[in-house]
């Protein structure tokens, strides 16, 4: 029986490897990632 539903969340470890581009808006929880927004 399925008792745990895991929400889709951004892989933070992977985002560390990608490095921050700094192009996102200066606000952080409510912010969007510019790369993700553009679909890069």
């Amino acid at each position, binding site marked *: 029986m*399925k008792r745990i539903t*895991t929400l*889709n969340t951004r892989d933070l470890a992977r985002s560390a490897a990608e490095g921050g581009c700094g192009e996102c808006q*200066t606000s952080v*929880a409510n912010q969007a990632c510019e790369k993700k927004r553009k679909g890069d």
Partner: protein
Amino acid sequence: MLHQYKLNGYNIVLDANSGSIHSVDEVAYDVIAMLDAGMDRDSVIRRALESYGHRPDVDRAELEELLADIEALKAEGKLFSPDLFGENASDYKNRDACVKALCLHAAHACNLNCSYCFAGQGRYSGERALMPFEVGKRAIDFLVENSGTRRNLEVDFFGGEPLLNFETVKRITAYARSIEKEKNKNFRLTLTTNGVLLDDEAIEFANRECHNVVLSLDGRRETHDRLRKTLGGGGSYDLVVPKFQRFVRTRGERGCYIRGTFTHYNTDFTNDIFHMLELGFTELSMEPVVCPPGEPYALTEEDLPKLFEQYELLAADMLRRSREGRGYTFYHYMLDLENGPCIRKRISGCGSGTEYLAVTPEGKLYPCHQFVGDPKYLMGDVWSGVTNAAAMEEFRACSAYSRPECRSCWARLYCSGGCAANAYHAAGSVSGVYEYGCRLFKKRLECAIMLKAAQAEAAPEGCGAGSEASGRDA
């Protein structure tokens, strides 16, 4: 580090270090809590059977299966995960840091006299002043010169009331636009206004040039007029609401927030939000007042249970209206779990004093708009740049991990260590903690995550929620 809570019928487990979020049934909720408390596998099964063994869906085999699922999530780094980022927090924060945003104080003057204004009726403890075009132009050049390879640059026209200096705002905007192509920059301009001067020309300007506009309205007439008064002492509700309604009608899909402040006088602030909805506004932000504790409108310890209740009520209302097809946006409940900020951003926070600076009408630089006028935090000016190295170092040191309280807090990768200005005013240091604000933030975050769990539950299979083994982006 786990954070578990129950809200609105949802049982939430947040794995703080990885950012993974799980919506679970009550059996899994208790089993995870027991494991987190250090209980061994056999004890967990025994205790779970004592609590739930009477249910047809709970037996030893079921619990073994649940424990296997939990182990799988642990192996994937989604439960009981280690902290991978704390050791290198300062590297994340200061790697490739450059200035990318300015809060341009177009006017240290205001045409309203709001009691709670942190800027002291717009003058920031100084004289009335309007920013000359030459200062604004130099500020734009300063931003370009100090922005490195950043392409997206932000300028917020702020005050006081920036529309008191509208001609200069327009000239600064025209200058910024004129150099965009040559400098390979994209200026995202925003405007924060009380609305008194929001006439046809200002609306046309904002719709043409501004990426976002923030309109100050506290909600119900009696709430708004109690603290947002004209210079003559009257209320300003009737003066600004029709202008806001007109503006929002012309705004289309572009960003525009109605931004209110709630105080001790309206701890039932959801009623102010509902009033904003009645007025036709759907992009809303409502912030707790931050002020010295002796002020009569200051929020108190006794207010907190009511405020928590209000945040929960708001979340439930948003969920209900969304299901009815008439949803609205509350800024603090906007959470993009899949496309939200990267770890560098989460650790760095708002960037005040490093990526983000405020510019006064005289061209002086401060870490952000809330430090303007404090001589300790005068950072330099737009001609000489940042010359106060000690102040800059203080802000470079601020991160989601710089305070002991934050290192052990489940919300640190969402609040990034909180607002330095609030910490400074509450605790006397930018590296302090504004604990009251933390408690409100955590409640808002719990509500926002609950809403995401509800959305995932309602979404078609594969949208918003993964299975036990496929919950992250590819």
